[in-house]
């Protein structure tokens, strides 16, 4: 087993990997940019190395600096987490060349699956169903118009190297195409240093269901079942579950999708952890979308239901150990749901809300798992994803999990910045969500549905809120007028003035 491993990432996933390393008795090395000297992953690691300025292109995406750090600390392996260099074949290759083990699949497999277009070809090759679209990247706007016209609107623009909704745009009409293409490719360029975009047919009201697989270097591979990630905003997952309510009602789907996933993975002699994403339409037909050749953000729900520790398995496999389990060993118990806690304002189109958090109260009690990347006093940097933490729950049933998640979201409190915590509670109360009627357009529809949130609110809230606010100001010996002042004059100030004129 390895003596020391470098974690080439930041935030909650770096922390989660460091925790796994500590449990395995392996020394952890963190890397950090100028913006992250005081970040939690640096505080928790055994060792740490500075790798450059805040922009990820100058730090977390710099292969040379990360390999230097690994060499300086004599790290024997590198865990890339997700995002950043995790799906960069050149990085995996550079590690291999430097004699450092890359914790993930071979660079060959990454390259083969790294481009969505190539992955599609491969899937088509073995007869796996895919969504109609271009086989290669489209740069020229004129060509894009052509393609889109023949596929028919609405279409979806996607970064070939993409993931997490970066460089992704829905386009409903030709008029919007060029602007969307420009934004998408520049976003892709920034996120993945690769601006290639391709175009595909947009499946209406699809579910996003993915299959987790894991295999060792001698070809033993199993699937750990599905995750449903249909609840998305800006094409990015925010709530994930295992099992999928649809699959729970139709167990044969797990077997079918699991086998399809393993077949596709085998075409590239895949090893270590990977995820195959599928779209599922309203007739329960599934279409292969892409393969993520790395650990998935939402891996905790699979861990909670199967009982396996994916990160520790990844490390053991990378060290050459056998997988040690067969498909028959894998069982699924109960139901897990995860929320991605972001520093953002759900009521303002999920606008990022960076800043310093003053107070953080964490949920506890039965069935809670918190993968956190923050602490009280930490300031969320503007340079990176605003993911603060992942909050997951487990319970014997999906209803139990929903009730538990509601409870723990109520206990979770982060002051000083806006978060989507309250927003999640509203979704959990939604009848459609409770019924398991999910699709990737769920949130947009939810906002239309819940335009006027009918809160049956305790009438005393208003009085108590007023009292607490008054006491807060008086105890802090600060003039209410200044504290009460607002950026722009509120309806209330106007009222106040009028009253004072009487």
């Amino acid at each position, binding site marked *: 087993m390895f003596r020391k491993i470098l974690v080439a990432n930041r935030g909650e996933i770096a922390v989660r990997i460091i925790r796994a390393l500590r449990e395995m008795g392996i020394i952890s090395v963190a890397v950090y940019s100028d913006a992250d000297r005081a970040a939690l992953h640096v505080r928790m690691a055994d060792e740490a190395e500075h790798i450059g300025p805040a922009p990820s292109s100058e730090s977390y995406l710099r292969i040379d600096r990360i390999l230097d750090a690994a060499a300086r600390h004599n790290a024997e392996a590198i865990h890339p987490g997700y995002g950043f260099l995790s799906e960069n074949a050149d990085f995996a290759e550079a590690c291999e060349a430097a004699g450092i083990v890359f914790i993930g699949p071979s660079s060959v497999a990454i390259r083969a699956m790294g481009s969505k277009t190539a992955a599609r070809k491969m899937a088509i090759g073995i007869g796996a169903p895919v969504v109609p679209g271009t086989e290669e990247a489209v740069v020229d706007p004129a060509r894009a118009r052509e393609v889109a016209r023949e596929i028919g609107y609405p279409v979806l623009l996607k970064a070939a190297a993409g993931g997490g909704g970066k460089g992704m745009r829905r386009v409903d009409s030709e008029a919007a195409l060029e602007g969307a293409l420009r934004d998408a490719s520049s976003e892709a360029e920034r996120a993945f240093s690769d601006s290639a975009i391709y175009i595909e047919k947009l499946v209406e009201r699809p579910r996003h269901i993915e299959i987790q697989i894991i295999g060792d270097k001698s070809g033993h591979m199993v699937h750990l079942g599905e995750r449903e990630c249909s609840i998305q905003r800006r094409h990015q997952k925010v709530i994930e579950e295992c099992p999928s309510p649809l699959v729970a009602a139709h167990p044969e789907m797990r077997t079918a999708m699991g086998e399809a996933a393993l077949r596709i993975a085998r075409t590239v002699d895949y090893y270590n952890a990977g995820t195959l994403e599928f779209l599922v339409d309203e007739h329960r037909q599934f279409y292969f979308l892409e393969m993520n050749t790395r650990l998935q953000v939402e891996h905790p729900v699979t861990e909670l239901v199967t009982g396996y520790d994916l990160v520790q398995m990844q490390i053991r496999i990378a060290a050459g150990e056998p997988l040690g389990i067969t498909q028959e060993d894998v069982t699924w118990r109960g139901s897990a749901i995860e929320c991605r806690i972001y520093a953002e304002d759900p009521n303002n189109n999920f606008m990022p809300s960076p800043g310093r958090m003053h107070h953080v109260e964490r949920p506890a009690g039965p069935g809670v798992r918190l993968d956190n990347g923050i602490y009280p006093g930490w300031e969320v940097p503007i340079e990176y994803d605003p993911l603060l933490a992942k909050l997951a729950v487990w319970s014997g049933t999906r209803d139990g999990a929903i009730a538990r998640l509601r409870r723990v979201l109520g206990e979770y409190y982060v002051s000083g910045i806006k978060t989507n915590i309250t927003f999640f509670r509203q979704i959990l109360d939604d009848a459609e969500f409770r019924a398991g009627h999910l699709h990737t357009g769920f949130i947009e529809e939810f906002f239309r549905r819940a335009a006027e949130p009918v809160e049956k609110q305790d009438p005393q809230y208003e009085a108590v809120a*007023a009292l607490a606010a008054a006491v807060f100001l008086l105890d802090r010996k600060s003039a209410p007028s200044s504290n009460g002042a607002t*950026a722009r004059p509120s309806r209330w100030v106007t009222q106040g003035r009028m009253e004072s004129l009487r």
Partner: protein
Amino acid sequence: MKLNVSVDGRAGDLEFTRDGEACRFTYSSDRAAPQKLSATLVEVEPGIYSILVNGRSYETKVVQGADGLYVDIAGHRSVVEVRDPRALSRTGRDGLGEGRQIVNAPMPGKIVRVLVAEGDEVEAGAGLIVVEAMKMQNELKAPKAGRVVQLSARVGATVGMGDLLAAIE
């Protein structure tokens, strides 16, 4: 103690007395009839109050927000403004130039594109500036139709929340 208060934009009147943990208070607003209440109030953690009002327990979290005090009770947030009537006179006039509309940065970030030039005529909703933060690009649109009379945004510049980027008249 008598205070003018607004909760989520609704004006109300708060009158209260404190004696250690004990509080007596009356609150009335356009949608809440005056209610005399007695409570015990303890600040259990900085800005966090445990308030018991005739048998009900309210864990109440208060923090200074951009547009007033954010008060969280059981996961429900109210924005509260408090003002001492005697202080009303002290208010400055913070009206905006009527015809002119300001475009502020909605968040800290980096300006990646400026789509207009000073003096341009723009339609309401036309894209003006693209700000990127946390790898997400947000296009700021014109709040009204008119001429861009001011444009302080420069590509590549880092801006703070609320910074003035442009003005339309």
